[in-house]
Every structure is written in structure tokens, then in C-alpha cells.
């Protein structure tokens, strides 16, 4: 009986020490500190029938439509939002956004390049399409100034991948 109690308390102490050490380790890793959030949104842009994107695809606001169509290269008759993902930007670790989850057709890998400023951040960014790294770039994102990538063709239109700092 006594040895059972000793084993039980010993196990409890070991668990407590393990949890404390793990928690301490997580807290002390400055590389995992959040320095911002990134939102990656995929839009379907087409001059044809927007219903090709599916019934679940969202219409976008007039403001965004005006913004996209003001640029000749991004000008289409219709736009639909297919998916979005918001992920944290870590101080020194990479992170991934998967805007069409659970599909991995479009993935965005990103990590900071320099110390973030108050309303801007410089990122190393990769765009993966169909599990292939298609684009690698370094980009400085500012609040209200996203990155638009005109990407793959699909169902008579093009996919626009928008990468922006989350507000």
C-alpha cells in the first residue's frame, strides 16, 4: 500500500515537472512570438458565368470589385471569393496558409525577413500550386496594401490569390 502511494505521488511530481518544463519552454521561445497575422484569400475572376465557381462561392463587395477591376491585368466581369485562411506571422518561424482547406491545391508559405514595423512587414513568401512551388518572392506588405497574384486558370476564369496583413 505504502509503495503504491509512493509510486502515485512520484508519478504526479514527474507529470507536474514535465508540464512546467514544457510550458516554460514554450513561453521562453521568442521565435514563436506573434508579430502579425496574414490573411490569404482566393478569388475566382471570370468574364464568363460566375456560377462556375459553385453556389457556395461568395460575392465580393463593390469596393473590392472596383479595386480589382481598376487594374487592367486584374479586370474581369465577375469576382467570387472561394476561400480564406488567416494565420499568425511568427517572429522567426515559417507558417503556412491554406485558403482552400482542406484542399492543398493552393498553399502559401511565409516567414519574416526583417523586424516588423508598426503597419508593415517584409516577408519571404512562396506560392505553391498543385503541390509545386510556383513562385518565390520577397514582398513588403503594408496595412491596406495587399499582394495580388494572378494565378492559375480554372473553369474559364483565373484565380487571384490575395495576401494581406490582417487588420
Amino acid at each position, binding site marked *: 500500500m505504502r509503495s503504491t502511494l509512493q509510486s502515485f505521488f512520484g508519478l504526479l511530481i514527474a507529470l507536474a515537472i514535465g508540464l512546467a518544463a514544457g510550458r516554460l519552454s514554450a513561453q521562453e521561445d521568442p521565435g514563436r512570438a506573434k508579430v502579425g497575422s496574414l490573411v490569404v484569400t482566393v478569388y475566382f475572376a471570370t468574364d464568363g458565368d460566375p456560377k462556375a465557381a459553385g453556389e457556395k462561392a*461568395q460575392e465580393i463587395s463593390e469596393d473590392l470589385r472596383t479595386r480589382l477591376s481598376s487594374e487592367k491585368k486584374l479586370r474581369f466581369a465577375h469576382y467570387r471569393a472561394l476561400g480564406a485562411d488567416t494565420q499568425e506571422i511568427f517572429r522567426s518561424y515559417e507558417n503556412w496558409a491554406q485558403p482552400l482547406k482542406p484542399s492543398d491545391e493552393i498553399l502559401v508559405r511565409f516567414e519574416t525577413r526583417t523586424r516588423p514595423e508598426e503597419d508593415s512587414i517584409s516577408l519571404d513568401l512562396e506560392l505553391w500550386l498543385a503541390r509545386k512551388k510556383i513562385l518565390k518572392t520577397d514582398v513588403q506588405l503594408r496595412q491596406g496594401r495587399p499582394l495580388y497574384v494572378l494565378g492559375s486558370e480554372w473553369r474559364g476564369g483565373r484565380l487571384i490569390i490575395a495576401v494581406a496583413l490582417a487588420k
Partner: protein
Amino acid sequence: MNTNPDETKLALWLDDELTGDDLAAMDTWAADMPEQLAAREELRSYRKMMAGALPASEEPPYPDFFLSRVNQGIRGLQAAEKAVASSPAAAPFWKMWLMPVAACAGMVLAFGIGRQSTDRQAPLAIVPVASPVVYTPEEGVDAEWFASSNAGATVIVLQGVSAIPDSTDFSETVYVPTASEADRTAGRRNQDKNSSRQ
């Protein structure tokens, strides 16, 4: 006839090292040269002072220093003689200040020209627009980058990317964003006046 003694003989005479005919000749030569006599007297008084300060059995230190002092005295005397003979008394003072004043004036002039040649409204250095490095590792894929002032965004246009098969149905797998999420990139636009293309 040149009666001036050479430097070695003059130095020996100043040091009271000459004897006999050489000493007599030098004394005759220096009789009507008060500067040389004054210089010899100065050196004599200097030697006396040093002899009083140092033990008699010990040689004065730094013989090179004394020799250089002697030579310096000789050069100074000769220069003074030439100056007295060839130029008015005010010329050395004028010449002494001419070079520094001219140098300062030149610096001020150059500074003024430099300031006038620079547009005060222009930045000191041209800061290039931060253009991203764009790399497309896939064969046949090209990317064009430009900053769109109209869209208030950075735009990359990919060419040569394989089309996604129409059979791929995102409506079955997609996380459909809410209306606010769908418009997250529709925030305020930066009114960039310039649009640059790569």
C-alpha cells in the same frame, strides 16, 4: 672672392672647436657679422648652463640634438641674412598669414559652391522603390511584378502556370469565407502616384 666658410668650419667655430689659423680666419670673418657672434655667444651660454646642470665626468646626452640645434641656428641665420638683403621687413609676416587665409577662403568657397549645386528639396540619396525579387522555379512559368497605383496593391501576374482541371470542385472542399472575410483585402487604398513595372 668667396670668403664665406663652409658649414663644417662654421659649426666648429660656433662650438669653439677651432684653433690656430682656422680660428683666426673665422674670427676675422665674423668680426663684422654681429649675428654670428651673437649665435656663438648663445651657444656658449647654453653649454655653460648644461655643464652646470650635468656632472663634469658625464658627456652631455643627445649629441645629435646639439648638432641639429647648431645646424638649425646656422640655417636660421643664413635665412635671416637673405631676408634682410632681399625683402622689406613686413614681407615675412604677410607671407606667414597668406597661406592659412587663402586655404580658409578656398574651403569657404568650395562649401558655398557645393551647397548651391544641391537642390535643397531633393533627398540626399536616391532611395529606390522596394521591388521584390520574383523567382519562378517551375520550367515555363514566368512572373511579372508591378506596383499598381490604381489597385493600391502589389501585383504579380503568373504566366505559363498549368490550369487547374475543371473537374476540381472547390465548392465541395472549400472553407467559404464570410462576407467580411471575403473583403479583407478591400481596405483603404494607398494613393500611390507612381506605378513601376518590372
